[in-house]
């Protein structure tokens, strides 16, 4: 806690403290500097306002209204949309599916990419080829990957079932069996997110000073000990970053569900954003859709806050 307070003190406060004397007018050149400073962030502020803040406020506004098939506002309904949402089985089901999806994909994805990063983080000949291959999924769009996996998952002519049959196992209805569908999409998502996770983790590994490893080796530490006592702590800020973006990505996943399963079978892959899309852009209930969007925002905010609150303590910053 003490450390936290120190950090707080070091941040310049924006509100003028009352006990201080009247702020003296700043010298001219300081003002110019300030104006130039604002000038630099202005383009970003304008873009963000146009494409993030305005739509955000608009959707909060819309969440209190009912809309006609063209999306025009028909009437104010107050909190009715929120009441409808939280009493709808479909919504609660989609929350559960989304969290399951995050649990399936995030830890597995980080674990595999960490493993690959550690394995390929050396100077052996030909290692760059592996690095290239493992980073490849980053260049794939969700749409393209989904189409590829659709072919792999094909129940009668897909490669996965062919391989299963080859070793004498029965075919699996990857995308049409409600027990398998979410697992199948998760598999595809883990592969898809591997590229980014891998690159970030590999960069993190390369930033760890060689001297630490050398001195540990001289002291006689084994490779597992080096990994758990040096690599993991030194890499923890990177892992933490990957964790946060992965969780946010998992909660916002949409493309693969839209293409692979369409939320089915039996709503077993009806994740949050898919049900939002369905409500707003297929059924044209923008009010209900916006309600979902706002709830999703709050959930993500909450999650990120929780992760910072509890996760960051375990992180070792240099």
């Amino acid at each position, binding site marked *: 806690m003490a450390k936290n307070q120190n950090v707080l003190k070091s941040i310049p406060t924006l509100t003028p403290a009352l006990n201080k004397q009247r702020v003296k007018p700043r010298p001219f050149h300081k003002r110019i500097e300030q104006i130039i400073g604002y000038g630099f962030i202005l383009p970003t502020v304008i873009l963000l306002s146009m494409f993030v803040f305005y739509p955000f406020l608009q959707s909060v506004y819309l969440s209190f209204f009912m809309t006609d098939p*063209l999306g025009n506002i028909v009437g104010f309904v107050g909190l009715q949309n929120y009441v409808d949402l939280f009493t709808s089985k479909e919504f609660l089901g989609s929350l559960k599916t989304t969290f399951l999806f995050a649990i399936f994909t995030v830890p597995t994805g980080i674990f595999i990419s960490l493993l690959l990063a550690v394995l390929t983080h050396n100077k052996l000949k030909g290692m760059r080829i592996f690095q290239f291959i493992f980073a490849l999924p980053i260049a794939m769009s969700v749409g393209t990957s989904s189409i590829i996996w659709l072919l792999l998952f*094909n129940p009668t002519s897909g490669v996965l079932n062919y391989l299963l049959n080859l070793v004498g196992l029965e075919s699996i209805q990857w995308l049409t069996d409600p027990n398998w569908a979410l697992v199948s999409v998760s598999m595809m998502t883990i592969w898809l997110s591997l590229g980014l996770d891998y690159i970030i983790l590999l960069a993190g590994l390369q930033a760890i000073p060689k001297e630490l490893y050398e001195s540990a080796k001289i002291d006689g530490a084994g490779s597992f000990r080096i990994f758990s006592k040096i690599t993991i702590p030194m890499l923890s800020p990177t892992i933490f970053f990957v964790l946060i973006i992965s969780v946010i990505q998992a909660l916002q996943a949409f493309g693969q569900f*839209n293409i692979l399963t*369409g939320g089915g079978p*039996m*709503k077993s892959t009806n994740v949050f954003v898919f049900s939002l899309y369905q409500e707003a852009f297929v059924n044209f209930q923008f009010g209900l859709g916006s309600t979902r969007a706002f709830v999703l925002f709050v959930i993500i905010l909450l999650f990120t806050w929780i992760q910072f609150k509890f996760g960051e303590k375990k992180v070792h910053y240099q």
Partner: protein
Amino acid sequence: MRFKSHLITVLFVFFLLVTVGCTSKTSGAINEGNESSPDTAANTTNESTNEEPAPEGKTEVVFWHSMGGKNGKTLEKMIQDFNGSQEDIHVKPIFQGSYGDSLTKLKTSLQSSSGPTIMQSNFISSGPMIDTKMVRPIQDLIDAEGYDLSQLDQNVLSAYEMDGQLYSMPFNASTLLMYYNKDMFEENGLDPNNPPQTYEELEEAAMKLTGEGKYGASFSVDSYFLEQLFTVQGAELVNNGNGRQDLATKSFINSQEAIDTFTWWKKLVDDGLMLNLGTNTEDTHQAFLSEQVGMTLASTAGLTNMLEGSKGKFELGTAFIPYPEAKTGAGGVSVGGGSLYIMNNKSEAEQQAAWEFIKYVVGAEQQGHWYINSGYFPVNTDAYELPEVVETLAQFPQFETAINQLEVALENNAGSNAGKGPVLGVYPDARTITVEALEKVLNDVQSPKDALDEAAEEITKKIARYNQTVQ
């Protein structure tokens, strides 16, 4: 280092080739009702090629369509012919994916003028299309000009007539067909020229066909198929005369006809006679064409694709869709397929140009060409007399089944609202819910009756909300 970077380039190019090879698999959108056919998505890049701008001084008419695969190519050819024959009109086709996707895009475009002048939409979207209030009723143009409708198929027109007028011009008419493998029938001691007609007969035939890794049938869990299986028994899907007398307020999806159909379907799957491949219609067709299953369901629109796919492998048969024996003669299929709308947010000149194009494509010659190159049956009855059509019919009698089926339907329906098909605003919702109900039944979560009761209740709730917003 040099070697390495070369290697990386080579690897990358190889990878790209693999990717491209995977995605450019062409296959037609055989199925009418399926909203999420992933292959149509893959086709998008192939279809929207006709991007050249309109030549100076011509009125440009933007035409959004949903014809992928072979049918799309046929349509683009017809448009090219039209453009070539015109002095001052240029039609620009844009493929917008499935009907469902296209409607979604249309709705988002209506607030601005970025949308099309002509919009192709499927029959079941009639409710949502009219409710946008952005449609110029075709009837206006017909009346203004005294256009003669008598050459058009009266069965089809009656389906599209709502509130006593035509809002859109039927263009690609279809019905649902059952396709079967004649060779497989023969091998298993079944008469290849006498396909099963009733639920009971189909079950018997499936029993004989099943075995050695083969299945009697595979029907995709698709709402369009289910709607047709109910309609053919004479059941209405919503109240108020199937939504044709007044805005529908209640779903009839839990009718006895629906319960019977679900029970029959489930029994087929449970007994191992039907291969359940879920909601992806493409998969069932693939299984059918690779001779894993003996029977499947698809729109007439898929006929040319099916003929091509079965060529050299087996003889393709087409049959009426089945019904329970007790319901013989109770109803018939309704007209599916699509129609062309003119949007009213475009200039009068553009709307008139669009009308010229519509008159052209429903002409006998164009419809005849369309018929034998797609499988959609002609909305213009004069087309049947064209020599090329007569020739094709003699060569491929499979084309005739759809027309015969509609003929029977017309007799059985005799002006009933069930046979004309439902008018319903919340159709995308209703379809999702219907499909989910059958999935629940097939996965032993609920009994057919419970699943359908719940579905009816849910759809009714959605209808109530929708009606509140359009009144």
